């Protein structure tokens, strides 16, 4: 509990203050060197809790993805080196606009992609803090399923610990008095704090743990039991807050209901009759099936699915309900049922021409080529619709890699067809349902589009051809993993104007 006495660091004018620390003086926001896989990495302390007699620290490794954040015992922190104390708020303002960060207050708020450069709607703090002004509420009606704007949870680690403007503190103080204190504090730091301590913490102002929005910087579920696997979640997901306290959360593989208690889960399994996603099968081959599930008709199931996938998708937002989305769920089959392997969601009516909103292959099935099939299906649907499409941004790191690979392979496959001598980007787009922009960028990224002797040419590099041939060989041996358009029984669903306005 000695954690609190370091509040004096705030208010120091120096942007980065370094100094030696002890276990007891480490506060939230401190950056220290932490042992990770045999090497020391700079990491930021996001949460502190006392468990089993010792302090443990939730750390975010600088320049690592948030999914690698973890609880570490005090022993892993190298205190022989100096630590960086959290920056006071004045330094915060100097931050380049490029690393846009929303203040914690606005964590749930989003910004539309097109308003990224310009400051969005002025909000309460707009005059005080430039950064805040950029975060604006998402268009409520828009069907976005991803966050556009970085929220606190994904900001570069430097920014996080700071308090923001004094004005902000005030408003949060107010909020704190309204909010049920006990829950938030407990879930944030894993320890129970009395009211006095709470107030003290607020007074000294160094800690932001009380701020409810801080809560979701820390993963709330420890472990997940689903189907035949135990899975470690990657990110925060707004499951009931009591779930933060249990070691294992049980997920029913078919109806995706969640339980914090084995007995309840067992009872539920005895009653549950669902054996596949609750929608219509639109595709079936030897290995997989696709089901189309309407967010409006299957609200509970789709909510469950979103909660689950949020554990693995940083930029997914569950701010709004699932009504305007269709969920395309990929399953493998056996005699117990159709096991959900991954899914992608798609807006019923995308204003920006997205053909996919969120996509994930659940971790237990990753690195087996399923993601590629999901992407292929999303383009197959676009082909049926006669539209070009692109995934909604931002992409996650894994999403980017999967998409770039799919795009490259798809284009190379087309370009390498015998007797193809020339093609326009437009033709490629019509054949693949990829947008011309995606095609152009893919060609550039792979150094295939070059300016040669006064003319543009597409170069099939040895590298991509090599990869292409290897893929063909592998398919010969293992059988092809592709979406066969003939097996797709699907017509683009039509929604009436009233159902598209999402009025209940």
């Amino acid at each position, binding site marked *: 509990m000695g954690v609190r006495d370091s509040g004096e660091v705030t208010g120091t004018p120096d942007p980065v203050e370094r100094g030696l620390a002890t276990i007891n003086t480490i506060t939230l926001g401190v950056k220290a060197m932490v042992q990770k896989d045999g090497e020391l990495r700079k990491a930021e302390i996001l949460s502190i809790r006392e468990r089993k007699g010792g302090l443990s620290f939730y750390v975010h490794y600088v320049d690592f993805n948030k999914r690698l954040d973890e609880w570490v015992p005090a022993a892993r922190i190298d205190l022989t080196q100096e630590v960086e104390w959290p920056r006071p708020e004045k330094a915060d303002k100097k931050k380049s606009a490029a690393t846009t960060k929303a203040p914690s207050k606005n964590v749930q708020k989003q910004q539309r992609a097109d308003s990224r450069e310009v400051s969005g709607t002025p909000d309460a703090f707009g005059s005080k803090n430039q950064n805040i002004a950029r975060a604006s509420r998402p268009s409520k009606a828009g069907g976005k399923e991803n966050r556009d704007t970085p929220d606190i949870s994904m900001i570069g680690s430097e920014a996080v610990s700071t308090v923001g403007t004094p004005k902000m503190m005030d408003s949060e103080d107010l909020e704190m008095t309204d909010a049920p204190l006990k829950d938030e504090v407990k879930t944030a730091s894993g320890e129970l704090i009395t009211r006095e301590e709470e107030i003290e913490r607020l007074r000294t102002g160094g800690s932001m743990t009380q701020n409810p*929005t801080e809560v979701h910087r820390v993963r709330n579920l420890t472990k997940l039991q689903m189907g035949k696997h135990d*899975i470690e979640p990657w990110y925060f997901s707004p499951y009931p807050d009591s779930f933060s306290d249990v070691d294992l959360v049980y997920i029913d593989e078919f109806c995706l209901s969640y339980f914090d208690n084995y007995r309840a889960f067992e009872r539920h399994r005895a009653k549950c009759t669902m054996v596949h996603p609750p929608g219509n099968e639109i595709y079936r081959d030897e290995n997989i099936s696709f089901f189309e599930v309407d967010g409006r008709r299957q609200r509970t199931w789709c909510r469950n699915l979103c909660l689950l996938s949020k554990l693995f998708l940083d930029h997914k937002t569950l701010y709004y*309900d699932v009504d305007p989305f269709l969920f395309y769920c990929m399953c493998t089959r056996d005699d117990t049922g159709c096991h959900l392997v991954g899914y992608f969601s798609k807006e019923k009516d995308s204003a920006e021409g997205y053909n996919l909103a969120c996509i994930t292959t659940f971790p237990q099935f990753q690195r087996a080529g399923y993601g590629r099939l999901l992407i292929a299906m999303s383009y197959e649907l676009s082909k049926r619709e006669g539209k070009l499409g692109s995934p909604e941004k931002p992409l996650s790191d894994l999403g980017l890699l999967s998409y770039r690979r799919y795009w490259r392979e798809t284009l190379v496959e087309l370009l390498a067809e015998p007797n193809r001598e020339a093609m326009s980007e437009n033709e490629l787009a019509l054949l693949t349902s990829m947008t011309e922009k995606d095609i*152009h960028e893919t060609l550039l990224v792979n150094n295939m589009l070059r300016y040669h002797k006064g003319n*543009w040419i597409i170069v099939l590099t040895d590298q991509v051809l090599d990869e292409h041939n290897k893929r063909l060989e592998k398919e010969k041996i293992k059988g092809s993993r592709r979406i066969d358009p003939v097996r797709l029984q699907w017509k683009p669903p039509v929604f009436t104007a009233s159902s598209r306005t999402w009025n209940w």
Partner: protein
Amino acid sequence: MTRYGGLGRTRPKKLTSKASIPIVREHEIDLIDDEIQSTLQQIETGVEKAEESEFHLQAAINAAAQGKDKDAHIPTREVIVSDIQYAKLYPPIFSQPATYIRFSSTVEDCCGCPYNMNEEDDAWLRNYNSKRDASSQCSEDDFEATMNFFEETAQAKQPFAAVDSPPVLSFADMAESMDAAVEESVKRFAKDIYEHWKARRLTTENLPLEPMLKFETGQDTDDSDPFVCFRRREVRQIRKTRGRDAQSAEKLRRLRKELEEARQLVALVRQREIARKEMLGMDRTLFTQRNEVKEMKRKLNIKDDDEDLINQKPKKKTIEMPPRQPNAPQLRMPLKPGLQGAEDLQLLEDVQSEKENEILRDIKANIAKHIKWNEGFVDHTRAPLSPSPERTFDAAAFRPAFTAQLPTPPSSQSSSNVLDTSLDVTSPLFSKDKLASRALELHDEPHRMPSFRRRVGRGGRLFIDRRNLVARCKVELDPFKADRFKYDQEDSDEEPTYDTDAYSIQIMQHRAITMAKAREQAAVAAQAHAQAQAQAAQQRRLQADQAGNAPGANPVPNGVTVSSEAS
């Protein structure tokens, strides 16, 4: 920013999406050119800016750029095989249908009772059952159903429990909600399980026992609470257009009308019911009064057939039969009472004649209508439907022009011809129609005879009106020409003037005929000669008929040109 190889610093041609780009293999081009070319070009990754620089992502991108996809791996968290008894939890009950699955049940439909008991419930239930004999044990399903009933009732009665934290619902309140829909088993155990439920609710501060997602509560804290999810969306604004406005206005109008109709329907039903009530009241008074009559009769010892006591039906008949009798035929065609007897046997000709009659009636009615329309006007069209206004004169005021000097109209054959054609010149077919002959019935027989009347006009002027001349004359005149001169003369307050061309061939012919006839009569002595003359005249007249527009012969012998006004 970007440097392109090949042509040094010259700006490369713009590449449009429609431009066909040649595809080449790497070995087909000059490598030296390409060495300069670098992929410095900034391409948006679509990844969050703050994450682009992440260590593993950069490593993976670089590996992919070098074609080493295998190395392009981003570390994720651990997944291990679970030690739960999968086979027990997930029984093999799935058999794949031959066709693609179509399914619309929801999670709620598939999960049975939503309450799932936990270890705490288990312990309580075991303890509870151990104190009871086998016949009155509470099963797990019953227990869950009961708990679920409590949970649902609490939710229904205290919907804002999350906000205003009311006390735990009492058992009395619970019992209140137990209606017929609640299962017997639930009712049986409710009292016992309630205490357990209440104890558990107290530990959760009266929040639902099953962990719940946080939804909007309408409080300010909602917005910043990361646990609040799945908010309702606001309705998307629909673009307003004039068309849409009109459409919705139309919809509203229709809705208004339909509602109005429904309202009227209800009002009418109400009226009917009020009438029915009145009728019942009448029946009642009738009954009581009859009762009185009965009593009276008994008292006075009157013995008759008690007809006045028998209820409505026979009574009605006796009362209603007489008026019905005369009424009945009225429903039929009143025009042919002769058919009354042959009611059973309908003859074809009856039907036909009936139809004919109908048509005739129609025609008459139409003509009458026309006359009415044209009252005060003269129909100058070629074939006026409405008869000329002279017909409306009071026939009685006219005196038939029987004079010794005047010859009777020529004999039947020609005269009937003349009449027919005179009425409808333009369509001789119609005149042949027997319907037309019926229509003629409108004109009374005596009117065929030329007739006159004398009257005194303004300023003591004497008028002589003639009948049965004008019609023919009118026909003779060319309507167009007549129209031309219509306003040439001074207006007359009296009847309109009909101008005719005294030198038109038709009229001259007509004059000739009449002259010839006069001569014929005059020269009785010279029979043969007269006959020849008559024949000639006849021929000429026939010719005139064929000429089409002229009725030719006028039976009126005096051959006067037609100006109906004689001043």
